[in-house]
């Protein structure tokens, strides 16, 4: 086993020093994944957000609270900029609009100020619909900020104290009304004391308090108006997607796997041509060990490519549903393409012929198997044809584990087929390789 491992490490070192080979194994798949992922746009993303600039010239507690509420709405992505940069970004079309909070915004916020807070809104003229949506979001945020004040007993107490002071200082309030007003403020004091007591008690018990009033402009409930998609249909599959990378990354991983298979197939014929295979053949190791060394190197490379792409995809937002099934898919794919690699290596006598044949085979497998057009977008007849390509079963296994939510039983078909294909091709390739070196 040590000999096989030593040979595999040598092959991995050789391939890592081939910059063009490394580009096709890592660089190209990353490009494919990012390019197609970007093309799929908002597939799998449930909510659309507006990106706006906020120019906070007031920089008060109230203005900061407003921005916080704006972000919390979940509908807006905020970039804090100065006025010039904000207006420039909107003018260039990079941002939907700009929201300005001028000096004095905080002082005019609240019920007792007697004036409405001033907010500036600049919108890209070509995006009126989004501008109107932004207008609504601002109003909703202001309303929430206003009502939010009544959810805090300390703020309410401030208003009550202000009211009491105003009444006390007013000489023209009729004497008959004064006891009623005094009774009102005392009742409010009692209410606030009970409210504060309840908050303190809830806090002590460590539970979220439900004390105090809850204000809402309106209670809007979202209802699902979409028709129920048939199970297994394209719409049903789309409903499973959680990220735009869910489709593009399995596809991209396969380009890396194909590059590994072609790259290692070429190394076998290269060894023969440069004479190192002869050295290995006369060493006290068996031909099985020589082939096993190549196979192990290719296996490690395939697993590494899939793992690296999974990490990148996850970092970008892909959320595999089952890491265990992803591992099962990766191992099955590696077995399959190790077998294909060994078979590819015997189709020609020179590097050029093996390389040409390997990439032609790869292109056909990718074209029909979903490496170019994702399986989910394929018409029915193409989908039927694609069953002949190991790339289709590989992508299906990866997608099953990443977003199609396959059970272990459902994974057995693609994974079983991949392993079977790998074993058959490995056997054919090994026999031909053994005969050709005699």
């Amino acid at each position: 086993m040590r000999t096989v491992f030593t040979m595999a490490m040598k092959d991995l070192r050789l391939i890592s020093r081939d910059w063009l080979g490394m580009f096709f194994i890592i660089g190209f798949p990353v490009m494919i994944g990012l390019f197609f992922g970007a093309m799929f746009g908002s597939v799998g993303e449930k909510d659309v957000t507006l990106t706006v600039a906020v120019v906070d010239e007031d920089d008060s507690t109230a203005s900061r609270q407003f921005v916080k509420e704006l972000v919390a709405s979940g509908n807006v992505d905020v970039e804090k900029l100065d006025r010039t940069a904000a207006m420039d970004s909107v003018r260039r079309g990079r941002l939907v609009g700009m929201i300005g909070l001028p000096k004095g915004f905080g002082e005019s916020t609240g019920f007792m100020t007697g004036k409405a807070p001033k907010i500036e809104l600049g919108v890209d003229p070509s995006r009126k619909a989004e501008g109107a949506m932004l207008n609504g979001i601002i109003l909703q945020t202001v309303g929430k900020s206003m009502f939010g004040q009544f959810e805090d007993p300390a703020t309410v107490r401030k208003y009550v104290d202000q009211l009491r002071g105003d009444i006390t200082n007013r000489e023209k309030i009729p004497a008959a009304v004064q006891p009623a007003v005094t009774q009102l403020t005392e009742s409010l004091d009692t209410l606030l004391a009970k409210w504060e007591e309840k908050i303190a008690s809830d806090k002590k018990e460590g539970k979220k308090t439900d004390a105090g009033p809850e204000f809402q402009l309106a209670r809007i409930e979202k209802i699902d108006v979409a028709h129920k998609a048939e199970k297994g249909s394209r719409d049903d599959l789309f409903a499973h997607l959680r990220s735009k990378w869910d489709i593009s990354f399995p596809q991209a991983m396969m380009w890396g796997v194909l590059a590994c298979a072609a790259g290692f197939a070429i190394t076998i014929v290269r060894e023969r041509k440069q004479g190192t295979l002869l050295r290995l053949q006369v060493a006290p190791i068996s031909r099985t060990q020589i082939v096993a060394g190549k196979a192990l190197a290719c296996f490690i490379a395939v697993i590494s490519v899939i793992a690296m792409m999974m990490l990148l995809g996850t970092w970008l937002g892909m959320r595999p549903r089952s890491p265990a099934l992803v591992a099962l898919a990766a191992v099955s794919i590696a077995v399959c393409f190790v077998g294909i690699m060994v078979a590819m290596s015997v189709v020609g006598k020179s590097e050029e012929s093996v390389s040409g044949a390997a990439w032609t085979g790869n292109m056909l497998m990718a074209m029909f198997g979903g490496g170019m057009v994702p399986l989910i977008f394929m018409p029915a007849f193409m989908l039927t044809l694609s069953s002949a390509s190991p790339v289709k079963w590989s992508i299906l296994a990866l997608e099953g584990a990443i977003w199609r939510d396959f059970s272990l039983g459902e994974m057995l078909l693609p994974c079983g087929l991949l392993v079977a294909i790998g074993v058959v091709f490995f056997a054919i390739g090994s026999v031909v390789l053994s005969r050709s070196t005699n």
Partner: protein
Amino acid sequence: MFSTKEVCGQDGWLPGDAPMIEVHELRKSFGPTMAVAGVSFSVRPGETFGLLGPNGAGKSTTIAMLTGAIAPDGGSIRLADCGAPSEPATRRVIGVAPQTLSLYEELTAAENLKFFGRMYGLTGAKLAERVEWALAFAELSDRRGSRVNTFSGGMKRRLNLAVALVHEPQVIFLDEPTAGVDPQSRNHIFERIEQLRGEGRTVVYTTHYMEEAQRLCDRVAIMDHGKILDIDTIPALLAKYGGRAVVKGELVGPPRNGVKLPGVVDGSSLRFESERPLEEIAELSAAGVAFQTLEVARPDLEAVFLSLTGRSLRD
């Protein structure tokens, strides 16, 4: 000198008692082409044995069968008491420097040596020691970390030879080890092979350069068209097939005292053949024959090959 006991771990062999390599009626065809047609020979322990013949004579195919790289169609090969070259125990005692530069160009000199050392079971301190030895042998210690694709042809040839020796083989097969190298590197390789000879290792050496065979080999097998035409020591081959030495000279003047000149006289030029040229020239000088120029062409393996096949080695 190495014994079979050291080589294969078996008793019952004394140096000189039995051949290190024994080949009997070896045959190999590639399609309709008979590459090796019933070759038989034996090589003694510590001997440097040459296979001399033109390109396509069957030398490399013979080496490939001797090293187990390809299986013969017929005949038998035995290496000392180890058995056939397909046996792992036999392969451990064999070192091969193929005609093609069999190196990983993207690996460094040290990485190549380490890798092939590991293939022969070397590990740890022993591997490190042998790698150092091999780098020094190839005079590449200062380039140990350089990738092979940055080496000159001569450096690659030296490393190709060093890789064959990293596991301390007792039988070494060198298939045209000087092909395509400059005279300086060629001389370096000759010195290294002479060093191996001095250590008592058995060397099988193929070449189509007669001067290499004459310098390095104890015995030579002349091969052509897949057959061995004769095997013997070089003096014996020269005696059998080389013919007599040819003496050519320009006379200072006509011979005095009626001295009878041998061979053909054309004006002042003299040409004659002799089995003992120096003695005959001395006798002529004593008789008063004076030479302006004198050239003695002794028979060589080229002449032997010409005599055996009717054509030149370079044809």
